[in-house]
């Protein structure tokens, strides 16, 4: 068979993405039709920049999801096909079996794996980890930033000092330290997970308690139920048989997070939360002077109710914008980690690792590194544009 021309490659790639296009069009049609009723999200569709950003982000989100469902991929991301090593884009398979896709659309990498499929699978890794890790970082930052801003004084001085300390430490060095086998063996990352992942539980518990404290009949069962489930999830998350933290027996352990991913998760949360802390603290300092906060105080509301129900909802504008930007940074951070071969396993299809693999033969074969690099670029660009669009729309009228 002849290799595909560039035109054919593009057509075939666009065809592979059919489910993504359908999903994207559906989302846009529904959103634009009902945009006046959708609040801030709806306003996004008034800004061209915001729409472009949203389209780019949703493109990768859908790609990740459908990729995980094996819809878009043409080959298995890990299997090698002989004779395809470093072949250029559009090369046909030497001996295509029945039901096997007959081309490597974006060529093969130095282990003869399909670059196109690895890009799709890599999107799933990013789409899974980056937003989740960022949200965790936000919960930590919010839980500490609100009291720092609200109470001020020594608590604020202490927490701000701590945040500055972490921010002053070189991030890459920190990662290297955290993933060094000796350090992993001491259990430090596990202990950090124990500490960092307790914050979301504290956050939710305080949120519910302050809201329903006046109605014990609703509060007590609600808290027991929610905390029970969250506690179980928490224990399953941190506990891993064989590691330093193994607190519950295996039959109760709902899932095991691979050690590498846990470390990546912990590091991302650890380095992102101080910045979130500072933003939340600043917003809390501003909003606590408003009359509605004084009104809540004069009717005897507790400090946590004021922080979580009076201050936090009104800080959401800047926080949502920052969330988008920060997911972008986290994506880059994941790329950097992968590039240095930290955390994720070496055969992982995530973009950072793939770029690092392709780097060695960059002068001869460009495509194995270029494809994930462009993916990373477009996704982060999309998140930044989305944040810009959101910011513009929150400032308008």
């Amino acid at each position, binding site marked *: 068979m002849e290799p595909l021309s560039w035109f054919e490659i593009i057509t075939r790639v666009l065809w592979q993405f059919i489910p993504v296009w359908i999903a994207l069009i559906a989302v846009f049609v529904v959103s634009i039709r009902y945009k006046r009723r959708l609040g801030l999200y709806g306003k996004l569709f008034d800004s061209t920049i915001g729409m472009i950003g949203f389209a780019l982000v949703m493109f990768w989100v859908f790609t990740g999801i459908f990729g995980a469902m094996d819809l878009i991929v043409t080959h298995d991301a890990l299997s090698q096909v002989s004779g395809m090593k470093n072949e250029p884009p559009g090369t046909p398979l030497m001996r295509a079996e029945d039901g096997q896709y007959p081309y490597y659309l974006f060529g093969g990498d130095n282990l003869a794996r399909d670059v196109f499929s690895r890009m799709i699978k890599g999107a799933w890794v990013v789409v899974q980890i980056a937003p989740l890790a960022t949200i965790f970082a936000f919960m930590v930052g919010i839980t500490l930033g609100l009291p720092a801003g609200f109470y001020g004084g020594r608590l604020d001085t202490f927490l701000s000092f701590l945040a500055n300390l972490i921010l002053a430490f070189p991030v890459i060095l920190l990662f290297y330290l955290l993933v060094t086998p000796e350090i992993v063996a001491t259990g430090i990352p596990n202990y950090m997970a124990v500490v960092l992942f307790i914050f979301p539980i504290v956050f939710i518990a305080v949120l519910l308690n302050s809201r329903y404290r006046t*109605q014990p009949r609703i509060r007590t069962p609600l808290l027991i139920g929610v905390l029970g489930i969250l506690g179980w999830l928490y224990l399953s998350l941190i506990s891993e048989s064989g590691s330093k933290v193994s607190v519950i027996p295996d039959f109760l352990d709902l899932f095991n997070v691979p050690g590498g991913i846990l470390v990546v998760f912990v590091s991302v949360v650890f380095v992102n939360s101080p910045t979130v802390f500072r933003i939340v603290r600043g917003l809390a300092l501003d909003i606590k002077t408003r009359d509605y906060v*004084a009104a809540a105080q004069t009717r005897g509301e507790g400090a946590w109710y004021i922080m979580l129900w009076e201050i936090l909802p009104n800080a959401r504008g800047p926080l949502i914008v920052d969330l988008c930007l920060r997911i972008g940074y986290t994506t880059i951070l994941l790329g950097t980690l992968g590039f240095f071969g930290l955390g994720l396993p070496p055969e992982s299809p995530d973009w950072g690792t793939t770029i690092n693999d392709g780097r060695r033969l960059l002068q001869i074969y460009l495509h194995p590194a270029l494809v994930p690099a462009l993916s990373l670029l477009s996704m982060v660009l999309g998140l930044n544009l989305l944040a810009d669009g959101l910011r513009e729309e929150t400032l308008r009228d």
Partner: protein
Amino acid sequence: MTDSYDGPILEIESLSISFFTRLRDIPAVMDFSVKVMPGEAVGLVGESGCGKSTVALGVMRDLGKNGHIVGGSIKFKGQDLGAMSQDQLRSIRGSEIAMIYQEPMASLNPAMKVGKQLMEVPMIHRGSSEKEAHARALQVVKDVKLPDPKRILDAYPHQLSGGQQQRIVIAMALMAEPSLLILDEPTTALDVTVEASVVDLVKELGKKYGTSMLFISHNLGLVLETCDRICVMYSGEAVERGSITDVFDEMKHPYTQALFRSIPLPGADKNARPLRAIPGNFPLPHERPPGCNFGPRCDYFEAGRCDATEIPMTDVPGQDRHATRCLRFQEIDWHAPLGTDVQTTRSEPGDVVLKMDNLKKYYEVAANALFGKRGDTKVVKANETLSFEARESETLAIVGESGCGKSTFAKVLMGLETATDGQILLDNRNIESTSIQDRATQTIADVQMVFQNPFDTLNPSMGVGRQIIRALEVFGIGNSEGERRQRMLELLDLVKLPREFAERMPRQLSGGQKQRVGIARAFAGNARIVVADEPVSALDVSVQAAVTDLLMEIQREQKTTLLFISHDLSIVRYLSDRVLVMYLGHVVELGTTEQVFAPPYHPYTEALLSAVPIADTRVQKRHIVLEGDIPSAMDPPSGCPFQTRCRWKSRVPGHLCEQEVPPMRQMENGHQIKCHLSDRELAEMEPVIQIAAE
């Protein structure tokens, strides 16, 4: 420019300005005409959103991206501003037309010394040398009566007080000796006594330099004091214009009349002659009614005539340049007395509910915030020996300017802070050292507060109904969600809001409506004492009357004790039973409303009374202008707190005022004054406000 020009300085002819937004075009100003003659001051009055600032920006041709002049012309000294290029406009702005904005701090560059900012003006517009510019700056700063001009020129804006900043802004506007000065609410951000001195200054300088002025304000009293002519705006249109005396005494438009009836003039009384709020709401720019914009709210509305066609401006015959936009102005009997008003009986004060005894609140300010109290600490005396009683269903007004300690007092009463010394007795129980976390739910529900800023008083991300229900939850009212919901709807009825508002978000409500929700929330737990912290000062005049009346009505029904904090003496005189005047943490005068508003006065009360602008041509005021600014509470003067600004100080022998804090003197019938003046001198005081016989 032609200096020999002697026609009108500014001539606006049927100006229309629209803003173009994503959804629709919004006409902000329609068919607006006004003429400013040389040396004349024209007042532009109206409620917020009526387009008065848009007119000013239109004159400066500074409407932003969305605003466009869609019709009419603006002529400055006979030249059409609309036909000028950007370059020509730039040479006019700042040198021929100068503008003074509301917020002085926002008009000064915080990173540049005051002198440099002033010198820029002649250097840019006239190419003056640095030396000339400096000399001119010094001269102008002297003209605006700032002490120590050399030091001021060398200061940064944040080192000056608000009043001084506004004087600098005025100085800057005068640097180039403009022919026209546009003042957009120049004193709204200032305290009353400071406002009075700034207004005085503007008037004097206007005369001295022969500058014409366009004075934009929502305060009718201020316009009366400063302007020769007035133009009343409503919903984008000029509805009436004429000379001050014509419009104030012989108004010919129903809106002007309604406006005057809704402000508390000296004759008004909450029981015998209550204020009349204008019914209905200000129309949104895209929902204006056909025909007369004021039609739906007008008492004299005639269907089929007032809503048929656009109504033109018509000259009132026999008066100088007096015109009105009303079809029926010749048919209406403008002097018909206000009938049909419900008169209410004065409610008698009951038992003492709240008693303050020698309350003191000091703050310690550490010099070094990081390492606690090791450094020098300064004591700020926010409240000093505060004593008074408040009875059931009584309105006690607390009057004073910013920094006088009234907010601190409210905080201590609410339990957000604890007192340093003294007692607060609520039903004979001491609550001065119980902070709000330790108070019983009933105590908290009993003492509630209504806040000043309507745009800040409700949580913007929570529904209106939800916020009231939350207050009910906290106060332990109602056993189920359903019961609380029912009670919430009743509270909405109480403050005269439609029940549908329960589902709305605060941003969908107008300022007055938000304030009503705030009142409903304060009364959720059947509060017995309500502290109202300037509840209407941020609202428009016509809404003020409605909210004030609502508060009075609820108070009458529920026998609430109302502590009404305000700096506006007109409204205080209208609604309060007793008045307490505060200055720098001290109570300087306490008595019934009649006692405080009549001599003998405390010298500060006297100045305060003189400073408040009153929108009534019959009122004659003695002119007392206080020098300087309010001293900082961090560094109060020795002896009597008011001695630095007091005009009676020289009458007290032997520098007593500078050495000792005067004792609280008991005058007749419980009237108290904190002053060293002898009885004879106090008795000699003349009334500040006198109403000329009709």
